[in-house]
């Protein structure tokens, strides 16, 4: 009673098949941080990811990108979520991407944080928790 685990959707899109990292993160968030993690599997369209995020009522969507298309994918994903009134769902990113892209995505406010290779699961979880606490819109504020 009274346990309200965070719900996180982890997703991969397009033909990007680099899923080692995201699977590790999924496992880590479950085992070390007690979160409920929904993994979409590979090769999803952004529309599918948005639909899954809505049906699962997640707090956070994490998109792993290893194709260099982060500057298109994140803005588009944000746009699709916003179009469904899901402004409250927070985006995080993972994968290998140039520093200038990371900075730009973070500074524009599109993506809360981007975790590159070598990030520890604990750090990721800590950031996710802070993000959620900071948001504090409350589950019933919808």
């Amino acid at each position: 009673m009274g346990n309200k685990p965070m719900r996180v959707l982890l997703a991969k899109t397009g033909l990007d098949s680099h899923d080692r990292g995201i699977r590790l993160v999924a496992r880590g968030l479950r085992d070390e941080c007690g979160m409920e993690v929904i993994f979409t599997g590979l090769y999803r369209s952004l529309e599918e990811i948005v639909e899954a995020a809505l049906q699962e009522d997640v707090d956070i969507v994490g998109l792993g990108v290893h194709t260099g298309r982060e500057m298109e994918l994140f803005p588009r994903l944000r746009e699709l979520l916003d179009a469904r009134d899901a402004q409250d769902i927070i985006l995080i990113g993972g994968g290998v991407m140039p520093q200038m892209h990371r900075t730009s995505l973070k500074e524009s406010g599109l993506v809360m944080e981007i975790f590159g290779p070598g990030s520890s699961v604990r750090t990721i979880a800590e950031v996710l928790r802070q993000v959620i606490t900071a948001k504090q819109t409350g589950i019933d504020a919808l």
Partner: protein
Amino acid sequence: MEELGKRAMAGDVRAASRLIRNMEDNMPGTEAAIKHIFPFTGKAHVIGITGSPGAGKSTLTDEMIASYRNKDKTVGVMAVDPTSPFTGGALLGDRIRMQRHAEDTGVFVRSMATRGAMGGLSKAVGDGIHVLDVMGKDVIIVETVGVGQQEVEIINHAHTIIVVLVPGMGDEVQALKAGLMEIADIFVINKADREGAARLHKETLSMLQMGKFENGWIPPIVSVESVSEPISFAQSVGVLTDKIDEHYQYLIKSNILATRSHRKATAEIYESLRAAILAPILDDLAANGELELMVQKIMKRELDPYSLAELVAEKYLISHDCLKV
């Protein structure tokens, strides 16, 4: 919260999923929403699917969704996966197998973690079914792993129960012994192109022949073959959904549906009473530290659990301290 109920009834996906989450989280005020939607529930055909991990339940569910969509029926799915008892976390992966319906507005798929709270899961599932029901889903599929007590409780919410067996797991007869025999309305032998399928079919059949089926429905066995043959796979799942519909018609004609609804209503009363009476008592005891004292007393053998329960009952129930819910 009532507002969420109204929006869910209008088919709003966000409101429905938020409502299910609030129910899972035991958010205050959720009851108001359930009270609001309850009069409009009871229209959907609820199908329960259970079987051991790796039996192919999600893949089967995915194809069943396709089959029902071909029949112009809308489908809601609740996929239940276990919560880790050590960390409280869960990896919910059933969705991976059902993504091809992601953009179909006639399909709503929701993953749910077991969370391990006593009796809480069955309640959350029951309430979730109500939400999918008022969203107007014609068919609701509830998928659970295994055959533990929790699963049997969940199954109380279903009209038609499917037990999925696979050859080569070595637990065929064991599984049948463990009470599955009694709860299954339809058996599916999945991956029936694998070695041992014929034997499993024979064993299941002979088990069935020994069983007593007083209500007249003898569970059929449907064999489903490899997913790598999409056409024959779809066809055999088509046979399965036909059988499911046949079972539902049988329930209606033979008035067994009333018995199942009775069972469901009874389960719902147990669950709501547990939530309204037992939960606040336990919360209260935990909050004022008495629970820990009781544990200590029992450990030191100063008191036995039964006398203790009597004391608690006296304090809360007879003096009506905690019944102001």
